[in-house]
Structure formats: structure tokens, C-alpha cells
């Protein structure tokens, strides 16, 4: 049904043109929270990619096999999805902490923060229940698992890209003699505003 | 210019014309000599003479039993007036032997060093140190660590600093002594290859060296570009080998000595002559710029007076070249074994008064000229913000302090000075 080209478009649309952070305002807490440090940003980005893909898979399965067949999805999807995501993240965190301390250091420590990251919930919901997010993706009313994963991958890579870009900008910002009142978060917001200004230039590419 | 000799580098105006043509002549022995007991990197010497003692030219007056050190000899015949202290060009206050020379001096004669079969012992006994400015005891350099084979000896005659012409005159006037030094070093090290390298702005010296060159000694002209004479850059330009980070240059199998050092080594081995004098370029805003053979311990003020005194408005007086030399806070400092020149920079020629709140406009000139591939702008910023770890992470300790970055900076940020602060902080942290 969906060609490679369409999937590629889906990916680019989700990653860049409709960048979740800079054009959708979703997931901003970690965007400002952890971007002050490059290493943390990279760790966070990798973890988000990992968690989002897992969460989308889980919610897709839950929707397809439990919520939709029972006809209770309309009003149960919020608690169901968030429960799944929170538990999943906590499970992975515990597992990593035990199984691979190295990986835990690199990635696991970011996992708790991701639970309360609205980007994950939004993306996982969109993957299971397309249209929720109003993300201009033209692939029909429901996504196959493959499409859902490509979409999720696109969103999470876009998240990571924006986060790392922003962290690099903030590294430079750290060295600038910004006035006391503007220092820190306010100037970071202004930077984000100008960065998002640049992303406006991409709106409408490929008609997305 | 066309050839790729090393990355980066700058072309500051040479200003060598006024002294390049002036033959070396003796500067008179002043009425009072201040001979510092620490003229080298390493352990300072202890005086071996006392107040009122009679000393002969070439007699040892300071020594210390340490590996990295070199003895100090009396440059003249005279009387020890005092064992005191003196300020040296670097700003430190060090112990010094103050000598009142005899009225009449025979500068041709000297007390020879103790003869020895070990050439390295002779070099040490003669107090030879690197005369390009680093003043590293030559014996140490001539004793490479075990397992490190030196196959190439490079004599550094690049003299890439603006204004300075002392090495140029030395190579032009005494090419056979330079070659003799090269041969001696080759014998000592057992190297296969000897290269005498100089910049292509000294064709006369190159011709003289070629004429004097013995078997197998190569004379290579390199494009004129600062800092061609820096050890790592010179080795790379000649051998296309990079000195690995954190290793000695010997790791490339090359040993670099300044041409003047080579002459001093030859003198020590062939006639037992200790190092008590050197050629100093006195130039810039002085009445009679030129190259002078100066006994160690002559005060800069005396030397400048001999050169006719300062002329016009002099903003900085520099010991060494204008790129790496040290501005003198007082002219009452002595010439030492490492003093290659005294440059009086008139107003207008000296770098403008810089201040550290100038912004970096990120023009990209400093990383482009850095011969070490560093990013001076960020190192300086980190140092200014006391972010030592960040500076260390960006290899601040690899800086060779050539000053090319500060030279090109359009906003005149004191890049090198900041980097030096960062470098020493990073090094002291690393040492902990």
C-alpha cells in the first residue's frame, strides 16, 4: 500500500517539517530542561528514540487488540496509554540498571524523565490512533504497525535533532555575556523562538 | 609560499633589512656584569665563587649537580663584587654573580673546560643550552631516551621571528662553524641524516652554508612563514612527520638544534670553549641597529647605549623577537645565553593596547593560522571564564605559544595571554 517514497515522506514530515519540538510545541520540558548540557542531550535523544518506538509498538498493540475490539478506546485511551508507557519505561529502566550498568549510565538515567514527556504520549497515541495529533500525515485512517513505527522513528529522530541542535546553541550561549535578567531560561526561550522561526521556513514543504 | 610546509602560520612584516647586512661586531665589556645563575630551563646553579674572589674568563662560577642543568662561567676576567639577585627578562628575580671586569680584557683567550673523552660531558661542562630562546640544556637533548633512535639531525636556522638576524649573520659569517657543529652532533648521535634548514629569505646564508657543507649535509630552504622555526612545525616541514601529542620530538626520529647552539657545541668539543658570549640583534628604534657579540651578563641598558640609545617614542622594549619575546619592565636586566635580540618597538609599530573585553567576532582567522590546529578563540574564552576543564578538553596544552592567533585577531583580543593562563591551569590540574 505505502511505497518507500511515501514512508520516506512520512519520516521527513515527522522529523523536520512538522518537528515535534519546534513546530508542535510538544515535549518542551526536556527541551529546556536537559539541553543545557550536550552529553545529556545526546543521551536523552537516544533514549527518546528507543522509548518512543517501544511505546508506539505497545500502544498500537493495546489499541488494536484490546481497546478497539472492546469499543472502549474513545474514553479509556488516555489512562491506558499513559499506564502502558509509564510502566514500560520503568521496566526498561529497572532492567537496564540490572543488566547493563554501562547502558544504564548512558541511557537509562534519562528514562524516568521520559515518562512525563508529552512527546511520547502524543506520538504513541498518534501511532495507535491516527488523527489525534492532526499531523497532516496522509496515510489513511489507521496505520499499519510498520507505518506507525516509521512515523514514530521520524518524530523521535526529529526530537533528537532539534534537542542536540539546541544544546549546541546553548553551549555557545553559555559563553555569551547575556544580561542578568535574560541569562539562562529567558535567552534560551528567545533562542528557541528564533530557531523555530527558521523551521517556519519549512512549513508546507511537499505540501505537508 | 606555495609549498605546503605546515598548516596555518602568518606572514608578519620581516623588518630584517636594517640589521641583515650588518656584520657581527663585539660590544664592549661594560663596567659591571650581572651573570644570573639560572640561564636555562631546569635546576638553577649555586655560586661556587664568593664576594671578592678573582675570576678568569671561562672559569666556572656556578654549578649544580642536577641532570637538567648547565654550569655558568665567568664571561670575563675580573672580581666578584657581590653575590646578589637580579631581575631577568622573564620577570623572575634570580640569584646572580655580579662581576667587576678588569680594565683590559683579552676576549680571545679563556680557561678551557676540563677535557673529557665523553663529548656529552664536554657539552655540559661548557654550559651549552639551546640558544634559540628555549635555553634547554643541550646535553639532555643530546642524550635521547633509550629505545628512541635518532636518524635525522636538524639544524634550525629558520629565524622566523621578525627583526632578528643574529642566526642569519652567524650562518653567513661562520658557515664552516655551523657545519662543524652539525658534524659533531651527527657523530654524537649516530644519525644518518643532517639537514640545515633555513627560510628562503636568507639566500646568501644558504649559499654560504652550501659552500661550506661537508659530505652528506643537506641545506634546505623552506618558505618564509612564521612559525617555521618552531620545532614541531620544522620537523613536519622537512620530514612530513607529526610529533605525536604528548610525546617528545625525538619520537619522530629527529633532533632539532639551533644553529648557534651547534656552533657552541663545536666550540666546546674542538677548543674546550665554554659558552660565555652570544650574538644579539639590537634593532628597532635604536640609533645604530646591528648584530653584536655580547658577553653574557651585559645589561640591556648598556647594550642599548652602545647601539646609540633609543630613538623617538619607544613603546615596548622586547627581549627576543616581537612574536614570542618578553617585554621588559626594566632595562636593568642582563643578556643571558638565550637572549637572541633586543627589539625596541616604536609607537605605532607595537600592538595596540588590548583589553580583554573585546568580543570575538568569530571571523575564523585564528583557527586558520594556528599551526597546531587548535581553536584559539574558544580556548581563550574558556580561559577567560575559568573553564579549565573545557580548555583542557580542547587540547589547550598543545599550544606552542607562537602568538599567530593574537597577531591576526581583528578585535585584538589577547588570545595568547589568555591561553597561557588556561594552559598553566590545565597543566597544574593535570599534574595533580
Amino acid at each position, binding site marked *: 500500500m505505502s511505497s518507500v517514497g511515501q514512508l520516506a515522506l512520512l519520516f521527513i514530515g515527522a522529523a523536520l517539517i512538522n518537528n515535534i519540538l519546534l513546530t508542535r510545541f510538544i515535549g518542551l520540558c526536556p527541551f529546556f530542561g536537559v539541553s543545557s548540557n550536550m552529553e545529556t542531550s545526546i543521551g536523552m535523544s537516544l533514549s527518546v528514540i528507543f522509548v518512543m518506538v517501544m511505546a508506539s509498538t505497545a500502544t498500537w498493540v493495546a489499541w488494536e487488540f484490546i481497546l478497539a475490539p472492546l469499543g*472502549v478506546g474513545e*474514553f*479509556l485511551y488516555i*489512562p491506558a496509554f499513559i499506564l502502558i508507557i509509564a510502566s514500560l519505561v520503568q521496566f526498561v529502566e529497572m532492567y537496564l540498571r540490572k543488566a547493563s550498568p554501562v547502558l544504564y549510565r548512558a541511557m537509562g538515567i534519562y528514562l524516568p524523565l521520559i515518562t512525563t514527556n508529552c512527546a511520547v504520549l502524543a506520538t504513541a497515541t498518534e501511532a495507535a490512533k491516527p*488523527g489525534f495529533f492532526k499531523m*497532516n500525515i496522509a496515510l489513511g485512517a489507521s496505520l499499519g504497525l510498520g507505518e506507525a513505527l516509521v512515523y514514530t522513528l521520524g518524530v523521535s529522530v526529529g526530537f533528537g535533532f532539534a534537542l542536540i541542535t539546541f544544546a549546541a546553541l546553548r553551549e555557545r550561549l553559555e559563553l555569551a555575556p547575556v544580561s542578568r535578567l535574560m541569562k539562562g531560561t529567558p535567552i534560551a526561550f528567545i533562542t528557541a523562538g528564533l530557531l523555530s522561526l527558521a523551521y517556519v521556513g519549512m512549513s508546507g514543504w511537499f*505540501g505537508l | 609560499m606555495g609549498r605546503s610546509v605546515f598548516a596555518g602560520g602568518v606572514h608578519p612584516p620581516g623588518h630584517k633589512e636594517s640589521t641583515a647586512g650588518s656584520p657581527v661586531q663585539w660590544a664592549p665589556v661594560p663596567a659591571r656584569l650581572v651573570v644570573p645563575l639560572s640561564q636555562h630551563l631546569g635546576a638553577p646553579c649555586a655560586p661556587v665563587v664568593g664576594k671578592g674572589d678573582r675570576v678568569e674568563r671561562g672559569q666556572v662560577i656556578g654549578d649544580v649537580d642536577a641532570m637538567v642543568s648547565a654550569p655558568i662561567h665567568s664571561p670575563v676576567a675580573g672580581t666578584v663584587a657581590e653575590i646578589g639577585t637580579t631581575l631577568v627578562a622573564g620577570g623572575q628575580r634570580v640569584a646572580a654573580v655580579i662581576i667587576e671586569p678588569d680594565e683590559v680584557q683579552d676576549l680571545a683567550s679563556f680557561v678551557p673546560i676540563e677535557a673529557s673523552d665523553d663529548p656529552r660531558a664536554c657539552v655540559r661542562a661548557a654550559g651549552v643550552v639551546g640558544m634559540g630562546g628555549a635555553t634547554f640544556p643541550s646535553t639532555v637533548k643530546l642524550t635521547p631516551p633509550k629505545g628512541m633512535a635518532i636518524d635525522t639531525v636538524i639544524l634550525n636556522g629558520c629565524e622566523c621571528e621578525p627583526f632578528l638576524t643574529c642566526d642569519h649573520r652567524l650562518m653567513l659569517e661562520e658557515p664552516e662553524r655551523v657545519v662543524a657543529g652539525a658534524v659533531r652532533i651527527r657523530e654524537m648521535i649516530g644519525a644518518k641524516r643532517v639537514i640545515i634548514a633555513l627560510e628562503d629569505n636568507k639566500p646568501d646564508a644558504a649559499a654560504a652554508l652550501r659552500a661550506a657543507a661537508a659530505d652528506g649535509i643537506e641545506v634546505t630552504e623552506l618558505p618564509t612563514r612564521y612559525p617555521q622555526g618552531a620545532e614541531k612545525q620544522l620537523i613536519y616541514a622537512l620530514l612530513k612527520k607529526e610529533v605525536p601529542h604528548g610525546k617528545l620530538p625525538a619520537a619522530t626520529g629527529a633532533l632539532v638544534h639551533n644553529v648557534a647552539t651547534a656552533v657552541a657545541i663545536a666550540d666546546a668539543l674542538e677548543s674546550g670553549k665554554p659558552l660565555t658570549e652570544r650574538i644579539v640583534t639590537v634593532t628597532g628604534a635604536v640609533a645604530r641597529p646591528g648584530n653584536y657579540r655580547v658577553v653574557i651578563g651585559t645589561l640591556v641598558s648598556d647594550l642599548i647605549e652602545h647601539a646609540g640609545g633609543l630613538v623617538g617614542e619607544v613603546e615596548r622594549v622586547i627581549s627576543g623577537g616581537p612574536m614570542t619575546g618578553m617585554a621588559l619592565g626594566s632595562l636593568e636586566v642582563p643578556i643571558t645565553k638565550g637572549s637572541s635580540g633586543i627589539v625596541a618597538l616604536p609607537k605605532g609599530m607595537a600592538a595596540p593596547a588590548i583589553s580583554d573585553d573585546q568580543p570575538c567576532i568569530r571571523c575564523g582567522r585564528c583557527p586558520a593560522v594556528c599551526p597546531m590546529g587548535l581553536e584559539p578563540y574558544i580556548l581563550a574564552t574558556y580561559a577567560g571564564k575559568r573553564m579549565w576543564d573545557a580548555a583542557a578538553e580542547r587540547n589547550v596544552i598543545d599550544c606552542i605559544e607562537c602568538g599567530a592567533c593574537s597577531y591576526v585577531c581583528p578585535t585584538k583580543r589577547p588570545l595568547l595571554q589568555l591561553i597561557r593562563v588556561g594552559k598553566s591551569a590545565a597543566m597544574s590540574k593535570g599534574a595533580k
Partner: protein
Amino acid sequence: MRNALRLVIPVLVTCVLAAAGLAATYAVTAPKIAEQDRLAEERSLQAVLPDATFTCLEDSRIQADVDAVAAPVDVLDTFYATADGAHAGWALKVSSRGYGGPMVVVIGLDTSGSVTGVTILSHNETPGLGTKVITETWFLEQFPDLEAGFGDADVRALDTISGSTKSSNGVRNAVAGAGRVFSEVLSGLDLSGLEGGSQ
């Protein structure tokens, strides 16, 4: 195991209570929501073809044709309109892309295929910016000027709202799509059997 139960049971209780509460809330609100949706749809249909009754066309045979000609927009529903028992025209519910996401546009066409009216049923445009396609009334009012047999070029000739180009284009694309659906599919449709079809 005991410990596991100690942990699982509170979660379970919470889940049960939450599910029950939500199901109850849903049961109360669902009819109201359906009613709201129906009302909204009714209002837009009335706005484009006043005083008509609408029958949703549920003919799977034409759907493929419609989808083919409508692209890049999607026709969600096609309504067959009657007034006083006679065929009065068509209304198409078309999903198009605006700036903030999909927008659903309802287009009314008379029997000849000229536009009778355009309304926007739902959208996600930036308030105050993209929503100018609704608040600047001249914009939607220019569509009824489109004569029977209008083509894409005619639609493109209409003005857009400066600064809200993407939203304007969303509406224009929807109308152009509806025009194509009419000329390629609906105009050639056998109308027999449609009259009096139940909704």
C-alpha cells in the same frame, strides 16, 4: 507473591474504579457529543444548500472513482440533496490540509455543478491567523461565483488571504476537488434509486 499482590491490588482497584467512572461519564456524554457533531454537520449542510434535505451517499462503487479524482483532498461524505422532493444538488464533505492540520470543508453544488456555498466544519488553524478564512467573510463568499463547469484554474484565480495562504489554499483545494468530483463522477451518475433513499 504476597508482596506482589500487595502492590497489584491497589493498582487494580484504581483501574477498576477509573474504568467504571469513565465508562459512566462516557455513557452520559456520548449522546450529547453525537448530537453536537450531528448539529454541526447539519448546520454546515444547511448553510451551503438552504432548505434542502440531505441523504448520505453510501455507494461503494463510486467511492473509488471519487477518491481517484479528488486527490490530493479526501471526500469524506457525499450528500444528495433534495428540496421539495426534487433533486436540488449535492453537498460534499471534503478533508483538506490547512496550516495547522486537516480541515473539513463542506461544499454545496447545485444540480448544474455551480457552487452554492462553502463552509468550514472543523479545522485546526491558528486562531486569529488561519481562522481568517472564516472571519474574513469575503473569502468564502467569493466561491459561489464559480460557475458550472469550473475547473482548477478558475479556483486558483480566486484571491487568497495574505498571511494565511496555507489555510486559504486548503479551502481552495477542497473546492477544486469537489468541482472535479462533480464533473468526473457525480454529473454522470445514474440518479435513479437515489431519490427517497434513507439517511
